[in-house]
């Protein structure tokens, strides 16, 4: 039998040849990406291009199976390609890129257009949305994937037919009122937030960026969580004293000053505000004496173990002192230190100060392992789920490839934790008419950037029949509207519009729907606009009452950003039901990005 035997029998000769002559893009060579690359190579896809900016870390090796210990710090893209070339039995052409996918000079729209299919194996919502838009501009199908621990999904976006990535509302991370963090914490997560975003950045971060989300300025009572003037005064005083304290960072006594202020005096000051403690358990400042410190300093590294077990108050203080000493030595005003979960000194400082504060406020302490997870937004990740999800992404691609009925034939797949099945699947949903991405009419404009905005506006009016009441923006920047006409005589270059920007045209008379143009450039003094059929803006409709899917007894999901390679959380239901145009109106509103004038 021949080398291709299995593939030819299972796929059939025709599909096998189509796959063998195809060119696909894989965005991401992390947990899902390594698995997908393996599958695509073994299936014999003709040409596979792999983009990943990242380098390999130790904590990747438990699942990113193309990487070895010796590969740590090497680029993921090139290392992955080298690894799969050992089993490149069908001679796929493999092309790695160690670049950010947003680099429009490396990845212009025409480059994306050269692929038959795009596989997403990404770790963040922003990049997913970007690729989603590229797919919409080019009318190209994307197979989108994500995993968190043992949960995961695969979902195809077929522009014009299915819902797109941005049709689904995603929850934003939870925030806490300032006073909960600063004066009345009740959970470990409050103390972690305080230690990392307030204390650490005040002491070791850049002078001015200290603590934007914990400062009191410009916030209303609901964001602050209090209108108690006495409390606000105390918090203000605390912050000012901290800035003062930072000046003594070079002193040998810095560690004692920090501990005495943060864990003794500040707490004593809070205790004076009696109103705070009428319904709450009072905090207890620690008793920090030279004798006590001498005992603390006797604690050895061995006694602290590997960070899985809880440390005592004294052990936390010893870790705090040693981390302060290390950070003091590393700090200077020109080289402020950023928190990084993989930077031991910064992590130790945050873990120890979290736990000391928790102790003071009668909150359960946590192990270093657990606090690392909260402070570093670590998303659990395993090889098995990635293999499963990537396997489905490649399997579904076979059915989508060259299939005009792909929308009907393919399925959205969710890994299931139910006892009676390993997955749940559903038909692809129709586009959400209120989606901020796929309800927009798209095209490519070719513009000489030395021309002025006035020339563009004239061209738009002439080509599409707008009157002048339009607003033009790129990303979150509004560049022109009726009240902002200072820019009209400026050139695109002056307004920092460049190749690859997405220019949004909003009809302020509310007649035409929104248009977004991908900017390509020329130097011939021309503006060439695409032929577009711009539909009228949809009228707002009453939302029908949503029905529950009858088959969704378990499964969860919805997607949240993280710093690792995989995402998502929350409830599959919300996807399944959103993938049916059943989602609530307010969700769509929240999806609308906020804009600022420049």
């Amino acid at each position: 039998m021949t080398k291709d035997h299995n593939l030819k029998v299972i796929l059939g000769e025709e599909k096998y040849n189509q796959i063998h002559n195809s060119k696909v893009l894989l965005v991401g060579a992390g947990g899902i990406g390594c698995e997908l690359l393996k599958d695509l190579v073994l299936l014999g896809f003709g040409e596979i291009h792999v983009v990943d900016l990242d380098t390999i870390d130790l904590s990747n090796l438990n699942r990113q199976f193309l990487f070895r210990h010796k590969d740590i710090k090497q680029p993921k893209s090139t290392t992955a390609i080298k690894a799969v070339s050992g089993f490149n039995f069908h001679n796929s052409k493999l092309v790695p890129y160690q670049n950010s996918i947003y680099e429009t000079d490396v990845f212009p729209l025409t480059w994306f257009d050269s692929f038959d299919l795009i596989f997403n194996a990404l770790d963040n919502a922003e990049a997913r949305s970007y690729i989603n838009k590229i797919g919409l501009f080019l009318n190209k199908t994307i197979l989108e994937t994500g995993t968190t621990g043992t949960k995961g999904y695969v979902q195809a976006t077929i522009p014009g037919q299915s819902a797109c990535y941005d049709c689904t509302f995603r929850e934003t991370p939870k925030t806490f009122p300032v006073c909960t963090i600063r004066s009345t914490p009740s959970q470990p997560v409050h103390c972690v937030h305080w230690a990392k975003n307030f204390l650490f950045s005040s002491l070791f971060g850049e002078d001015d960026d200290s603590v934007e989300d914990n400062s009191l300025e410009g916030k209303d009572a609901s964001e602050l969580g209090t209108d108690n003037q006495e409390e606000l005064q105390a918090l203000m005083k605390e912050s000012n004293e901290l800035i003062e304290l930072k000046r003594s960072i070079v002193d040998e006594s810095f560690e004692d000053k920090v501990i005495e202020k943060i864990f003794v005096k500040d707490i004593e000051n809070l205790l004076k505000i009696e109103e705070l403690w009428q319904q709450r358990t009072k905090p207890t400042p620690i008793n920090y004496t030279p004798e006590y410190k001498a005992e603390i300093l006797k604690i050895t590294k061995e006694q602290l173990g590997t960070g899985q077990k809880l440390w005592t108050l004294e052990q936390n203080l010893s870790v705090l002192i040693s981390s302060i000493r290390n950070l003091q030595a590393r700090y200077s005003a020109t080289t402020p230190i950023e928190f990084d979960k993989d930077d031991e000194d910064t992590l130790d400082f945050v873990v120890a100060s979290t736990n000391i504060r928790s102790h003071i406020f009668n909150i359960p302490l946590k192990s270093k392992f657990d606090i690392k997870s909260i402070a570093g937004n670590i998303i659990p990740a395993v090889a098995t789920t990635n293999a499963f999800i990537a396997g489905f992404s490649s399997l579904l691609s076979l059915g989508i490839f060259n299939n005009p009925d792909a929308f009907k034939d393919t399925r959205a797949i969710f890994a299931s934790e139910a006892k009676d099945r390993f997955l749940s699947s559903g038909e692809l949903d129709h586009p959400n008419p209120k989606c901020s991405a796929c309800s927009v009419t798209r095209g490519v404009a070719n513009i000489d950037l030395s021309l002025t905005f006035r020339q563009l506006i004239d061209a738009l009016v002439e080509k599409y029949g707008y009157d002048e009441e339009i607003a033009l923006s790129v990303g979150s920047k509004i560049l022109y509207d009726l009240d902002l006409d200072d820019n009209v005589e400026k050139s695109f270059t002056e307004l920092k519009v460049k190749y690859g920007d997405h220019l949004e045209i909003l009809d302020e008379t509310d007649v035409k729907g929104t248009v977004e143009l991908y900017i390509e450039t020329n130097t011939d003094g021309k503006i060439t606009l695409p032929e577009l059929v711009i539909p009228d803006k949809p009228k707002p409709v009453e939302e029908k009452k949503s029905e529950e899917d009858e088959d969704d007894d378990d499964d969860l999901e919805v997607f949240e950003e993280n710093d690792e390679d995989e995402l998502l959380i929350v409830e599959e239901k919300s996807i399944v039901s959103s993938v049916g145009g059943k989602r609530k109106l307010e969700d769509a509103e929240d999806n609308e990005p906020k804009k600022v004038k420049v």
Partner: protein
Amino acid sequence: MSNELSADEIALYDRQLRVWGAEGQTHLKNSRILLLNFTSLGCEIIKNLILAGVGSVEIYDSDTVKEQDFSAGNFFLSESELAKSKVDQAIIDRVRDLNPRVNVTARDEPILWEEHKNMEYFRRFNLIIANNLSYEETVKLNAITREAGIALYLTVNHGIYGLAFNDLLINVSTYVDFKNPLARVVGPISRNSEIVKVEKFYDEESEKFKERFTVKSQYKPFIDTYTSSAFANLTKRKRKNVSELLSLFLSNLQTPTSDPTELISKANELQTKLQLNPLSEQTINTTVPSFLEQQGTEIAPVSAIMGGALAQDIINFISKKVEPMDNLMIFDGVNYSMPVYEM
């Protein structure tokens, strides 16, 4: 038994410890796995288990590398090993390289199922994964695992269709989960399982009530699937929804054939015995031909999917964190479904 994880292990396994915890990881570290037949699916399962950090894996295969193996999806092979043993040193070195902490060994000397001395060999393992055995081998192996108290996972796959079966003997494990609206109570919960203990407690972290409950599951031997009453009391709709691949796989394993008429007749006999409906037109006209055509073939995506699901199930069983499946799974790559039947 080693019980403590080192700092290096904690750093390496960080992302998965957040799924099954240090205790689960320790259980994995103490597990000894035997893989029978180094198929593409076998390769995916052990890849995932080795990455997860099991104690040891022995790979058995008495066959040689064939030309067509290069399209089946076993990525540990390379073309230079054509006609060599499937567990050639170079191949095993590649497997070992995945995670040097796992002790990987190989065997190509045929297993003589008749000889009782094999008991000693099998007793060295606490979990066996067997791919594409014959019916006779399956029955004999299952008898051995039952006698020796070894957990067993069996797989059979034909192209985009697959079956997996597990026999975990009597499995008693304690799990923690959020409290259901209806509290768990001691007593039977399914055909083969019962809850033997429930404790309610308040979890400070999630600020919710949780339950710690012990489940005792009595797994059945593989041959029992042929006479199972699992489907006897199903509603009409549910009976109709039972995957007919189940009978195709089971009857084709017992009486291998490449003749569609014979397969259909054997499968229908089994459907009747299992109190299921006769095979549908769809199955007869579409599934049976492609099932037979794809006999003995494998493809990477299916191996990856089944390998991912089964390795996670094995990890669930070994780490004692999540209930493992009970006891037969069908993979249907045409309809994208993976039901589990408690036979």
